[in-house]
């Protein structure tokens, strides 16, 4: 039987051996018209990607696998394990890459010691009877400069000569392609329990790879002689095919004659200011008491993969009938399989944290937003100082994990009320001498300590602070006194400590909706927009989370939020509609 007209684009195709994918390596794979960068992350996940950096088309196979990310050799762009989303663009250390910036990924499975991918939408997984429930050992893959058809014919023909281990005759050789293209040789006289299956990976019109898999049980206890035998046999066959004048050596580098489709990714937009309303359902895969009044939640995907997130990012947790609450991800760069958050029980506020503490169970489903990042971490600092107070440790810990992963110097200072209040203590202590725990300091002593920390900073040190608002104010105050540039101090507020003044009345002109609305005293822009059925996503509604920020085309906003940076506030191009006002009679907004 010969079914070689089967369409490889509709099947799972073997593209590597499992053992090809050693740690911290990028395997150079190939399908017709499509080069692949294949790499195994430290968590074992096999990534199969288009072999092209989104930026300037450089092959990712000349880049490096750091265990969690693949880094392009040209400009150091990093792409995350699993999702392929771009995690870092070194030319702009202060920006978070847009979440739409994602490499083209292909599905991967490992079976029979081989790694498989497919261009189709989830075809049935290959099931070869001879290989099920047996030990399998892949042979050395042999590339042949010949078409899949030629190779298949030759294999069928020449497999009879694999007779050192007993003759195979026609009836013991089967060529099939109901699943992947394969030729199966059964029964060797000397190896009664063994069989050999060849899969043929198409590479080009005139190039293929023979991927053999031996299966059996006792026969494979000492596979080396068998591997040598079949390697020689396949080499001989390859030489025969190639000497037939069917092919000559081709410079395989020249792939432009069969270009892969260039996928057109979505243009990056300014992620920070493009609030996503898309929601995501996840499952609480773990809930544990992390410290006094703090639980840790692990959130796992229900379907597919979680979107990539960079250090400093947070998600909103949305419970029916409650305002969304923001929680920073504690994930390190290697942790892309689930989100980890820490939730402090707040007696005041909207009740999300109390619900999480009291009601939410392991196994429950919750709705969350896509990760957003208004606290991005620069990775171009010779020194970084991280300061956390209480539950503010969550984004700070994610930053520390990242800096540690990319071998950049940092010092972490973690202020807590007591030992019992120390969330993520073991993860913090893993940083050893880079982590300093400050337990039970008074307000005054905390300030002294912060002064001391900041005094040691040189002008190139980047400083990140997260904690309760009084602490953030204190750090900003101290750094100002010490003459540290505002640019170097990065903070994230979870609540807005400003008293909001809604005293001035003004008008907003909605340029895209072609509407003019009056904003009276005592009402926020956001409230008026909502009353008029203008859909602007919002979350904290106190000027902290940045969800409701919109673009200002004309007018002078009066900022009362803590989510825009000082520079953004000065530029006046954005406004947090839930708290900020206008000093001009009119604001023209881009909605």
């Amino acid at each position: 039987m010969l079914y070689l007209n089967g369409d490889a684009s509709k099947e799972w195709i073997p593209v590597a051996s499992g053992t090809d994918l050693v740690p911290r390596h990028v395997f150079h794979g190939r399908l017709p018209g499509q080069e692949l960068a294949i790499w195994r992350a430290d968590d074992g996940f096999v990534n199969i990607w288009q072999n092209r950096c989104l930026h300037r088309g450089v092959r990712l196979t000349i880049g490096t696998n750091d265990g969690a990310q693949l880094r392009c050799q040209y400009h150091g762009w990093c792409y995350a394990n699993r999702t392929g989303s771009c995690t870092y663009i070194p030319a702009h250390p202060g920006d978070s890459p847009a979440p739409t910036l994602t490499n083209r990924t292909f599905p991967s499975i490992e079976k029979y010691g081989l790694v498989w991918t497919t261009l189709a939408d989830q075809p049935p997984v290959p099931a070869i009877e001879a290989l099920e429930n047996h030990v399998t050992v892949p042979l050395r893959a042999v590339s042949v400069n010949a078409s899949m058809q030629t190779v298949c014919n030759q294999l069928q023909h020449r497999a009879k000569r694999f007779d050192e281990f007993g003759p195979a005759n026609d009836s013991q050789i089967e060529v099939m392609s109901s699943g992947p293209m394969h030729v199966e040789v059964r029964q060797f006289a000397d190896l009664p329990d063994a069989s050999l299956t060849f899969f043929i990976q198409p590479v080009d019109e005139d190039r293929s790879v023979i991927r053999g898999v031996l299966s059996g049980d006792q026969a494979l206890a000492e596979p080396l002689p068998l591997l040598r035998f079949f390697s020689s046999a396949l080499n001989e066959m390859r030489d025969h095919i190639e000497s037939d004048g069917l092919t000559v050596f081709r410079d395989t580098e020249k792939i432009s004659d069969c270009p892969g489709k260039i996928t057109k990714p979505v243009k990056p937009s300014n992620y920070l200011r493009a609030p996503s309303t898309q929601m995501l359902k996840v499952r609480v895969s773990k809930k544990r008491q992390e410290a006094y009044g703090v639980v840790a939640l692990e959130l796992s995907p229900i379907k597919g993969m979680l979107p990539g997130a960079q250090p400093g990012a947070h998600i909103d947790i949305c419970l029916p009938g409650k305002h969304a609450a923001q929680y920073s991800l504690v994930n390190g760069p290697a942790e892309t399989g689930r989100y980890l958050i820490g939730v402090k029980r707040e007696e005041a506020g909207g009740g999300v944290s109390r619900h999480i503490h009291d009601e939410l169970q392991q196994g429950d489903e919750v709705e969350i937003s896509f990760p957003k990042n208004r606290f991005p971490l620069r990775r171009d600092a010779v020194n970084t100082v991280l300061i956390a107070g209480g539950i503010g440790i969550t984004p700070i810990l994610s930053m520390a994990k990242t800096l540690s992963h990319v071998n950049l110097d940092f010092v972490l200072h973690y202020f807590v009320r007591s030992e019992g209040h120390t969330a993520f203590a073991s993860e913090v202590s893993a940083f050893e001498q880079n982590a300093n725990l400050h337990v039970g300091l008074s307000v005054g002593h905390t300030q002294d300590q912060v002064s001391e920390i900041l005094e040691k900073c040189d002008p190139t040190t980047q400083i990140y602070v997260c904690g309760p608002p009084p602490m953030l104010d204190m750090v900003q105050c101290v750094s100002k006194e010490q003459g540290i540039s505002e640019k170097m101090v990065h903070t994230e507020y979870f609540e807005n400590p400003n008293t909001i003044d809604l005293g001035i009345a003004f008008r907003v002109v909605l340029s895209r909706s072609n509407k003019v609305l009056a904003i009276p005293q005592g009402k926020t822009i956001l409230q008026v927009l909502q009353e008029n059925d203008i859909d602007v996503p919002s979350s904290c509604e106190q000027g902290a989370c940045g969800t409701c920020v919109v673009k200002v085309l004309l007018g002078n906003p009066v900022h009362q939020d803590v989510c825009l940076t000082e520079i953004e506030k000065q530029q006046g191009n954005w406004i947090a509609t839930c708290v900020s006002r206008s000093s001009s009679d009119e604001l023209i907004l881009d909605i």
Partner: protein
Amino acid sequence: MNSLEIAKSCSTYSCWHPLFALEDLEEGGVPVYTQLLDQAVLCERLSEGKVSVRLADQQRGPDRQAEDLHSQVQFGFVWACIGPNPQLLFDIPEYHEPDRRNVCTGVFGVEVSAPRAIENFLDMGHFPFVHTGLLGIEPHTEVVDYQVTVSDEPNEIVATECLFFQPQAAVGSVGGVVTEYVYRVPHPFCAILYKSCPFDESRRDVITIFVQPESEERIRAHTMMSIVDPESSDTSIRLFQQMIFGQDKPILENQFPKKLPLDPLDEISIRADRVAVAYRKWLASGGVRYGVIPGAQAT
């Protein structure tokens, strides 16, 4: 349309293209073969600095000059134009200053299109990753915003205020400094870089790349430096430049596709790529078809 037809229909057909450093040709020697825009050409150095360039398959009649291609010697290189009406070749005024050292730093074969090579020459973001320890070093990776202007007269792109932290910017410099660059693109396949001169603060060193497109996907990259440096030897200047180019070559040869895509959606550009974005637009609007993948608007 095949490559040769594209070459003939492209605006670069009437551009001057570099073929050889004059010093690499022997006066009165045998004609040397090279390739330009998919056509074989022969180049010959005559006496008194004169040169003759002709298509290799052109039969020679009695009137030699009538069959010659347009040619000239400029910046130490032999330039030729295959088309009938050559455009004016740009000038580099600094080149003519009497106290400058003008050093041809070598020609390299690279499997890439001409515009990809130019774009790489205009790029600072790769310094820490490709020229590690020389033109850049991690973690100093930031490309701060710079200015790009495109002018009609002369028709060129200029990028100014290009700042980058460099551990050893030139053969004569010691220690890390923030270096300021100015880039100039006066020709689709030629670019000029001006950088702070370590020996004289008031002047700038000039580094050029003149790309000879052998075909759409293979080039000869000619490099030249015009610098104020009384100390370094010609050899050490050449060796430094060769090292830099040797580091760029494998990157260029691993770019896919080899031709430069002009559709802005084909590759992601960031703020640091402002000059590259301007260059791609400029090529498209200037009718350059050779070595590029035209954008949707051009097809």
